Every structure is written in C-alpha cells, then in structure tokens.
C-alpha cells in the first residue's frame, strides 16, 4: 500500500505546532519517579481562593458575608483530609513557616506558563522544633470555582479569554492547585506543578454542592500526588 507521504508530513508539522503545555516542571537532578524522602507540608491556611462566591452562596443558601467563612473551613478541612489519604506519610507542619519565606516570585514552567510562589530564600533552612525536614511540599494556592481553567489562570497567552464566560450557565466545578516539592537542604525546587480536576454540575434538586466540593478536593489531592510522582492518576 502506498502511504501518502505528504499526509504524514502534514500531521507531523501539525503535531509539532501543538506541543502540549508543560504543567509540571522538574529540576534536572530530580528524575521522574524518584522516591520521596521525608516530606513536610505546611497546612493550607489562607492560601485558597473562591471564585464566584455569590453563586456558591445562592446554591448553599448562605448570605454573601457567610459564604467565604463557610467555604474556607470546608476547603481547608477537606484538603487536609484529602492529603492525609492521598499521601499518608506526609507530615503536616504549621502554616506559620510560610510567613518567613522570601517575597513572591515567578517560577517559569514553560514559555508561557508562570506560577507565582513564595519559596524559602537561598540559604534559608526551614526547621520545626530544631529539626530540618529534608523535603517540603509547598502549596502556593488552591483555586475553586465554576468553569475555571488553568489555561486562563496561568497561561498568559490565554488569560484574556477568561471574560467571555462570566455569566454563562455553570456546567462544572473546578479546583486548581499550584504546588512545589522543595529540597530543604539545598534550597531548590524539585518538582513544581499546576494540577486541576473538575466535576460536572447540573442545577437539579438533589445535587449536593457541599459533598461534591469535598469529593472534588479529594480527587485534586490524588491528582496532585500523581503529578508529583510523574504518573497517570
């Protein structure tokens, strides 16, 4: 059979053009599938963002002033539980260490993708009760909201596309987390990533938003752990 050569060439050119965005970046010394050492994770604290709060308020029958408090507690507790079940060996440490880190910096993941993060300064060893944990899992921010996309949040070429769906009917709820596995002894990142998960939403009686958000955050933790270890969830 004669294969149309130009078709193969064309496909290759097209594939070359749509190279995938890089959502996980690894330090060259830290290969895919390297085993985790002893890892500590500062608690999520207030590093969460709720997008379209009024929509959540309406669905949960809360007032606009209550929704952030309620959802904050929900997100923090759910994430803490989810991490414990996804990574049981993880040691949770106080979120206070986040205040001692260097100011916000940009971490380049890709030609177009940057994440904003606070890292320990070069030469700054993070200790708790006099003990320096070899690796830290830093959660930079957790974003929750209807119909989000990590493209519009972190890819600066697509960031301007966000406005079009502002008043659209909600189809899904999404959670996005940006994180870094940090080498505490050498003060360098080992893996950085932006993980996202979503769950479909329909305006029906019986759809339990609260439960759905909890499940979403559990699957987000699983996805993050898979991205960190470099495998499919």
């Amino acid at each position, binding site marked *: 059979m004669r294969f149309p050569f130009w078709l193969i060439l064309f496909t290759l050119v097209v594939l070359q053009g749509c190279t995938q965005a890089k959502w996980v970046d690894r*330090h*060259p*010394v830290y290969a895919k599938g390297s085993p985790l050492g002893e890892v500590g994770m500062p608690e999520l604290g207030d590093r969460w963002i709720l997008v379209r709060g009024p929509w959540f308020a309406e669905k949960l029958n809360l007032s606009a002033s209550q929704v952030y408090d309620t959802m904050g507690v929900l997100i923090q507790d759910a994430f803490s539980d989810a991490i414990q079940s996804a990574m049981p060996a993880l040691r949770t440490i106080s979120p206070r260490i986040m205040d001692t880190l*260097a100011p916000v*910096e940009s971490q*380049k993941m890709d030609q177009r993708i940057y994440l904003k993060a606070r*890292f320990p*300064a*070069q*030469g700054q060893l993070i200790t708790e009760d006099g003990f320096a944990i070899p690796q830290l899992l830093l959660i930079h921010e957790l974003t929750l909201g209807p119909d989000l996309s990590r493209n519009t949040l972190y890819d600066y070429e697509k960031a301007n596309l966000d406005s079009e769906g502002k008043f659209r009917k909600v189809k899904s709820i999404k959670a996005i987390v940006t994180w870094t596995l940090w080498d505490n002894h*050498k*003060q*360098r990142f080992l893996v950085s990533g932006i993980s996202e998960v979503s769950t479909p939403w329909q305006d029906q009686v019986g759809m339990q938003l609260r439960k759905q958000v909890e499940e979403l955050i559990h699957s987000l933790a699983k996805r993050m752990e898979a991205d960190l270890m470099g495998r499919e969830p």
Partner: protein
Amino acid sequence: MKTSLQFTLPWLLALSITGFAFESVFLQKIPVWKKPVIRCVHADTSMPRVNADQFCQALGRSAPELGRPDCRIEGEWERDSLIAKYLAWAGRNMDPRVKPILLSARHPSVADRLRKLDDDYLLLFSRNQDTTWVALFTGKSTEPQALAYQVESSFNAEGIAEQIGQTWFSATPERRLSAKEKAAAAIEPDVSFGETPTFDTWISLGGGWSQATIPLTPTSWYKGKKEQRIRYYRNTTDSLSGWNFLEDESPLISIRTGFTWQGFVGGELFALRTTHKMKIDKRDTIYQELDHWDFTRYEIGLTVHATIRKTLGERWETQPHAFVGFHYSILQEDIALKSSVAEASAQYRNRIQFEPFYKGAIFGIGNRLVWKGFLALETRVGLNNRGRSLDKEEGAEDAAPEPTIIAGSTLDCFISASLEYHWLRRK
C-alpha cells in the same frame, strides 16, 4: 583480540588523562575583553584560597592576547552576609546537570550586585570532595554564564586558570569601552536601519549566456539533439525541440523594467534577444548555394517576483529574489543565397518554417546588490521553456494523430548579469 587491544589501549590512555580534565557544564557567549578585571570569590571560608597573583600569571601564560589581567580576591563580597549566603548556596547546587537559570540569584540585592558587574568577570570557586567547581558571572545577568569542574585531589587554581584561558577566554579579546564611549555607542544610529521603500521601480540592461545543457545534468539528455543536423533544408529524425535545428549556445541581451511593492513582491516586463545558427549538414551539396541561415530569437514577457531586503552596512543592500512568468517567443529568420546563385533550389523554397510565435514559461532565482539605493548589479539564473504542453490528449482510437509542431518543446537555461537604475519612493 590483539587488534581490539590495539584499538582500546589508546582510548583507555586518553581517558585516564582526560579523567582530570576540565569539564564544561555550560558555556554561554562571553564577551572577551583586553586587560580584564577578574574578581575571585570562594563559596565558603573553609575551602583553600586562591592566590590572585599566581592565578593571574597562569591565566596570562595560557591566554597571552588578554594583555595583563587584573585579578583580585573580593573580600568585601565574601564578608557581606547576604552575598556570602548566595555564594555558598550556588556552590552547594553546582551539578553536571544544572542549567544557568537554576543557579541564578533570587535575592533582589544580590541580583543587583551581579547586574552591576558589567565588563568585570566574577569567578566563583567551590570545592566539594575531589571536585573543584568554577562559575563565571559577567555582564548584566544574574545567572552564571559558564560553569565547569575539574576532578583533582588537591585544589589547583593555576591549573584552572590555564584551562579557563584556553576555553572561556580563547576568543580574540576586544578593548573595553570607557563609560563615555558606551554612552555614545548607545545613542549611535543603527546603520542597518532603513525604511522600506513603498515603491521601487527600475530599468535594466544586461547580458548573459543561454544554452540547452543544464549544468549538473547528464550529457546524454542533450547528445541526440546537439548532434542532429538538418538535411536538405528540412529533414531531421526528431523535430520536437528547437535544438534539433538551431545551435543552442548563444550570448543573451536583456532589457527589463520592473517594480517591487513594499520591498517584497513585484513584477517585471522583459525582452530577451539571442542569436542562433542553423545546424546544416555540410555533406549535402545542396547547401553550396547558401550564404548564411541564422535565426534571431526575441522573447517578450512578464514575470512576478518575491524578494527580501537585507542591508549590508550603510551603502549596500542585497535583495535575493525568485521569479516566475510567461513570454512570447518569436524566431526571426535571416537567410541569403550566394550572390553568384541565380535561382534557388526547390528544397530552399520548401525549407522548414517555424511557428509565427511560441508561448513559453520562465522561472529562476537571482540577487540584486544595490548601492546607495539607486544603482544595482543584478544576477540571475533560471530555466526558460517555450512550446505547448506535451500532455497526451484522449481521443477516439481512429482519430488521426496530430502533426508534431516543429520546436514544440524547447528548453534552455540562462545566466545573466545586468546593471539597473532604481527610483525609490518612500512614504
């Protein structure tokens, strides 16, 4: 077995020598200055110290073109706790797999100090067990521009100086500009900058050469046509190509006028003239009556072209271009009998006739070298065909075959050079 040893032994020897060699991890483009200022720092206080004088002498020995380098130990940097912290960090993170950006300084004030290095070189030494690391910072970057290591049981700064001289500073050094000269260079007009003319028109007169043999093609393609001779004013075994009748090699004269719009596309009107002798077979006695029999070929047509402009300094500009077009080709006969011949033979009166005109296609590539925007030397090469297409036409089986058109497909190639005068319109 013996042969394999013969091959492996030298390699093993080479390996054992290069085992202590200076291994480069990365090397970006480093400007090399005459009489460089080299500032040395150590990653930590416990490591052996560099002797600045000996380091400079070793560097001067291995790269004499540098002039006299000025080396010093930057004690002030090492005493500044912020910078010292960064230097120690960088020393800890040096690794054969590392990239420059992964060693960049993050703290704003450290980054600021590195950016102010400008033309000076900062060498950062670090020692980790048996490995000595050296990183080089220069310019306005916060990342190291080069990183290398050497495995040796003792710290040997002079050895490293020699290696650096041969690798990082091997380019021909340039003179450092003073602050005043730098300020002047920053506002100097860019000679490569010029506005693209909206419309460029020209007339051109040129000459060249045209022949049937296309270079780099087998001679067997042309052998039959070129050896062909005309018998009795009209007979050849094949009449499809004009080169069965005409001598193909001829000087070429061209007149052109054309335009380029916005510096990238345009058109051209051209006229070409070549002269060709008929290839008569001298063995035929009938030709004794003939004085001469030549054809002059005129070709008039249009081409379209695409070009790009590239400036070469202040006065010169180059414009490579590609063109394609069509033309009408006319063969004008020039024949005469000897004055002593009273009456022409019947063969003479029934000699072959070419078509009144042929349609043809032309394409090629060229380059225009323009001086001061108005005078240009243009050279081009290309292929030039005339005749009708040779596709077989589907017809009824009993249809009579179409008669062959004489010179129905004639191909040649050409090379020409011409002088052009340009008028530019800039808006």
